[in-house]
């Protein structure tokens, strides 16, 4: 497929799919609580409504920053998702786009944080400081895990090359070697924190600090923030499914010819990942405290990620 076409089509695709994913997540969450729950297309209704609500900017806010940051956040995460998706589809890519995607995701959450801080609300300030510590806790293991791909068997940080490598070995990366397995595990463990769900929804804890930095956002800004979050959650799960668990690789070269099939397999896998790393934890755990979460991330995922980089350097 042509790279430009893939890139452009992936824009709406990313939006629709990630919102659907959010709807599915909410539905399953409700069902696990013995409820019926909202319809799967509920996030669309929410967005339509939010986009058409009044815009209120608090007097304490620095208007520019407050207004612009949600747009940057949404744009960054959509861009990241589209790069990932289109490069998966087209089989073309630029060097190091894996890092680019990760960077865009981080940027999206930082933008939201800064925008929230600009609202001048004390809860937003607490949310900001909590998110800062959380990001230190999970971004470092995540980046190390991604970088270990470059040291590992694929030896690249380009999405299509990683895919081609998996196809050539006819095995998903995570099962091909020990180092990659632990890298994948690191990423999976980091998803709940990156997605800010219970037990790691500390920066946005509703009953503690009333959504933290999102407290003052309403209407269209909240809609953008929600898009940013939904898309980046989707991107993370897709990233793991494409880079580490590319199941279509079992089909061999077929995977590159029947793009539709391999894409839907990837989406199904990322749905499963979302179920396991977002829906289930947020259903069965209580929220941790910032210190406990920090300790957890610096004990397990960080150790795993360092293990993966060591293993990949020595070639396991």
């Amino acid at each position: 497929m042509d790279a430009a076409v893939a890139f452009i089509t992936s824009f709406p695709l990313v939006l629709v799919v990630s919102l659907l994913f959010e709807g599915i997540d909410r539905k399953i969450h409700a069902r696990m609580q013995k409820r019926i729950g909202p319809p799967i297309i509920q996030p669309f209704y929410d967005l339509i409504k939010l986009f058409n609500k009044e815009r209120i900017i608090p007097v304490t806010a620095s208007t520019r920053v407050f207004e612009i940051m949600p747009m940057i956040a949404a744009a960054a995460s959509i861009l990241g998702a589209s790069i990932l998706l289109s490069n998966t589809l087209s089989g073309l890519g630029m060097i190091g786009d894996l890092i680019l995607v990760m960077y865009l995701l981080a940027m999206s959450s930082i933008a939201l944080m800064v925008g929230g801080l600009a609202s001048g609300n004390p809860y937003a300030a607490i949310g900001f400081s909590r998110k800062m510590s959380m990001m230190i806790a999970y971004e470092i293991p995540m980046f190390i895990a991604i970088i270990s791909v470059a040291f590992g068997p694929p030896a690249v940080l380009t999405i299509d090359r990683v895919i081609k490598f998996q196809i050539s070995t006819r095995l998903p990366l995570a099962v091909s070697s020990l180092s990659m397995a632990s890298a994948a595990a690191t990423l999976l463990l980091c998803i709940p924190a990156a997605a800010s769900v219970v037990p790691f929804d500390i920066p946005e804890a509703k009953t503690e600090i009333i959504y933290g930095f999102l407290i003052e956002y309403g209407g269209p800004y909240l809609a953008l923030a929600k898009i940013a979050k939904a898309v980046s959650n989707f991107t993370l799960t897709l990233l793991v499914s494409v880079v580490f668990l590319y199941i279509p690789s079992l089909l061999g070269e077929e995977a590159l010819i029947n793009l539709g099939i391999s894409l839907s397999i990837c989406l199904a896998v990322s749905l499963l990942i979302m179920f396991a790393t977002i829906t289930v934890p947020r259903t069965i755990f209580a929220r941790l405290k910032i210190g406990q979460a920090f300790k957890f991330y610096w004990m397990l995922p960080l150790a795993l990620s360092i293990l993966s980089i060591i293993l990949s350097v020595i070639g396991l």
Partner: protein
Amino acid sequence: MTAERDVEREVEVEYTRLRIPFGPIHPALKEPVLLRVSVRGEEVVDVDMALGHVHRGIELLAEGRNLIQTLYLIERICGICSHSHTTCFIQALEEIGGITPSKRALYLRTLIFEMERIHSHLLLLGVIAYEIGFDTLFMFTWHVREKILDLFEKITGNRIHHAMNTIGGVRWDLTPRMVEEIDAYMREVEKSVKYIHNVFMDGTVEKRVCGLGVLSYDDAVKLCVVGPTARGSGVDIDVRRDHPYAAYDELKRDFSVVVERGCDVYARTEVRILEIFESINIIRAILDRLPDGPIRPKENVFRLMRGIPEGEAISLVEAPRGELLYFVKTDGSGGLKRLKVRTPTFSNLIGLKPMLIGCEIADVPVIVASIDPCLSCTNRLIVIDQERGESNVIDVDSLRHRVRRRWMRQ
């Protein structure tokens, strides 16, 4: 009388900490209270409470109404332990009027009382789960609770305000079918609460509730906290056993008072969980031994109300949250001269201060929830505040001073 204030130090303290208003409108609080929490980083260094957001002046209103009207009015002091309020009030009236309700009426009163305790404790367990972000557990406990509300609806006609008590007896009788239903439900709730108890020992929950919000035995005694808050700190008090009322005198051997020595949030939670089992025992005993007889006097309430002479009485009950005290003074013509309510949460709120200082912001909601602060009864014009470093005993004078200062500021 206030201690000399070290202004410089205060200014410094002001600048190094962030003041966070916690409430009066806050998702963790179903009811309004304003806690001004001062923090340094994530650590709470001071708490300041402002109450009175739901002060409706019920005591004053009651003085202008007749006893029947007051009965339904005070039921609406609170929706969670409405039956405790009416029982306490009615007991005082019956004491003044020299009316003895029949045995069956007393047993039925006690039955609703214990069912209310179960419903209230389940509600609180759900709220605690909700505060720590455990929505599924919250949903689960509230679902278990739904069925007891159904029973209330079946017996008394409303899920929350039972309107059960009337002068000299109760208004609704049990049918044999209801007895069976209650019995069946008790089996079910026993099973569910065992499950809830188990889930409360889940790792993530434990991390959030153990060792937090410590109220030592000495503090508990000094600050006069009551109910599960006191029993969670090892203070062995329970009105049901110490001053038996209604049918508790005859049910003494069917329950024991749960006392935990953990002093933390978990201990208070556990007290409540175990109390549910005790309540189940009491309810079973009541259903077993329910005497026959009329449930209320034959005269209509109007005549009974008129028959109550001038007098005064104090009455005590053990509401789900602790000791509830009523002082009632009648005027002899079916009205009230004075009504004074001392509710459990009012006693317990003072205990919050030692619990909160030194904890993290994240812990504030759970700790506040752990004393079960349903504030609708408690909110009065009162301010509790201690400057840091002052002695920890809250003396009346300084309280008065604060109140006056605040008034002057407004």
